């Protein structure tokens, strides 16, 4: 594995994307000049209004879509096609309904030819880790929406991805379930130290989860601001009602307003600004 400081875990360079609309002459620019550098072990949230292209950006990071211009780098190497070293958790229900919970969780390792004994161990471990130990034989239709999301998370983690990309995974859940799922994601992140890029439109969610919040502007989507989240870790349910949480949210909000006041034309930070590294005990941001 590359050294943590030589290249960002995930880099986006000069990424612009246009959708063709109707005839080929017209096109709509959805993402413009995106530069990002996400360091190993970071939890990065990307927020923006709906339609700002944040999901498109995430899909491009996974290689599910190819940008019109620019590139995505993984450990400094440009990706081509679907990057199967990354895990992706979709907004929609993407759990395979024709497979049981354990067969879903086993899907990634099995695709990679992991031996049976090791697969069995992975399934047991990850089903337990997301609290579905007693539902291993159940089919997804027998589970609630929140439980299906847990299956999705377990499936992504069981595949030992290098980075996890999550596209508004909890947008369809009720407030209570959403909160529980966010705590589950934080726990998984803390125990695995895997880099997470998490797209959301929910400021509370971003404050609760992220080290760094990337704010996108709309039409075209540009990096509007990259904001360090001052909220201390570890975070749990008590954090949500703390003054610190309110302060962190306010700080984010102010930074957001600042960025807006300066105008979308001027990027809030120089391109490829390196973001906070989670692994450091020091919560201060480090910029090269």
């Amino acid at each position, binding site marked *: 594995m590359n050294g943590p400081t030589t290249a960002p875990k995930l880099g986006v360079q000069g990424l612009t994307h246009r959708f063709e609309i109707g005839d080929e002459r017209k096109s709509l620019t959805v993402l413009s000049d995106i530069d990002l550098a996400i360091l190993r072990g970071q939890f990065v949230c990307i927020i923006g209004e709906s339609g700002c292209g944040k999901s498109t950006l995430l899909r491009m990071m996974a290689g599910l879509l190819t940008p019109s211009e620019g590139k995505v780098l993984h450990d400094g190497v440009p990706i081509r096609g*679907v990057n199967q070293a*990354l895990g*992706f958790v979709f907004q929609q229900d*993407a759990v*395979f*309904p*024709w497979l049981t919970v354990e067969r879903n969780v086993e899907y990634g390792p099995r*695709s990679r030819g992991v031996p049976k004994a090791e697969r069995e161990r992975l399934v047991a471990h990850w089903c337990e880790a997301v609290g579905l130990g007693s539902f291993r034989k159940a089919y997804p239709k*027998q589970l609630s929406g929140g439980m299906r999301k847990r299956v999705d998370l377990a499936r992504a983690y069981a595949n030992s991805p290098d980075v996890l990309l999550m596209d508004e995974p909890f947008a369809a859940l009720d407030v209570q379930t959403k909160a529980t799922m966010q705590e589950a994601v934080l726990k998984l992140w803390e125990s695995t130290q895997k880099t997470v890029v998490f797209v959301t439109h929910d400021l509370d969610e971003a404050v609760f989860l992220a080290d760094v919040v990337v704010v996108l502007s709309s039409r075209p989507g540009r990096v509007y601001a990259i904001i360090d989240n001052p909220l201390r870790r570890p975070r749990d349910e008590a954090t949500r009602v703390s003054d610190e949480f309110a302060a962190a949210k306010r700080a984010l909000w102010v930074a957001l307003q600042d960025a807006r006041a300066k105008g979308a034309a001027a990027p809030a930070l120089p391109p490829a600004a390196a973001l906070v590294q989670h692994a450091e005990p020091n919560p201060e941001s480090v910029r090269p």
Partner: protein
Amino acid sequence: MMQSNAGGSRHRLFRPSLIVGALSLCAIIAAYWAMALRPGTNAALVPAPPVILQTLIEELRSGDLLTNTLASLQRVLIGYAIGAALALALGALAGWFRWWGYILNPIIDALRPIPALAYIPLVIVWVGIGEPSRIIIIALAVFKPIVVNARAGMQEVAQIYVDAARTLGASRWRVFATVALPSAVPYFIAGMRTGVSTGFLALVAAELIAAPSGLGFMIQNAGQYFRTDVTIVGIIVIGVLGALLDQTASRAGRALTAWSDVRREP
């Protein structure tokens, strides 16, 4: 959490679907009976239900009915197996892989409007009057609905599952085998059930080609001797047989798609 069918199986015999179904069948028989008993009706041409029942018993005793039923059943099963296997394989390939689609779609779409019975003269000229040509006709009749449904099922596979499988490290072949095929199973079942009825349709037509035995032969032969009762017995047996096979296909389909949360038909 787990779904249960306890409520349904406890009162098996008293299910509304059975009672209403039996009543509607009785109504048809009663209407026919009333027609048969009308004064001036030729009892030989419109036999009353008891006569038909008697003929059924006679045919069973003589063993003719059994021989004919088995001959037909064998033809249908062989023809169905060949037609369905080809249709599933080609439909799945055409609906999923772009190049297979380029190759197969024009053929499938050209075959679609042609009734299988239109091939009968060609098959006779090319293959002759024998068991192979009857089986070929049944296979052709079965092929069409299944290939069209199988292709549609593969074209409707939700992109989200394909993306999920790809990000999890599945190869293109594995996506085909473990995502596209299973998620298209409900379509395969729908096509295979339609195939049962078109298969029986073609069976009777195929047996009109100088068949030495079979239900189609029995119906045709009886018609020539004005044995309307025998013809009706043959028709009833075909109906019952077809319904039984359709039920079997439907049950197999449910077992295969137990994971699906779509509404079950009655």
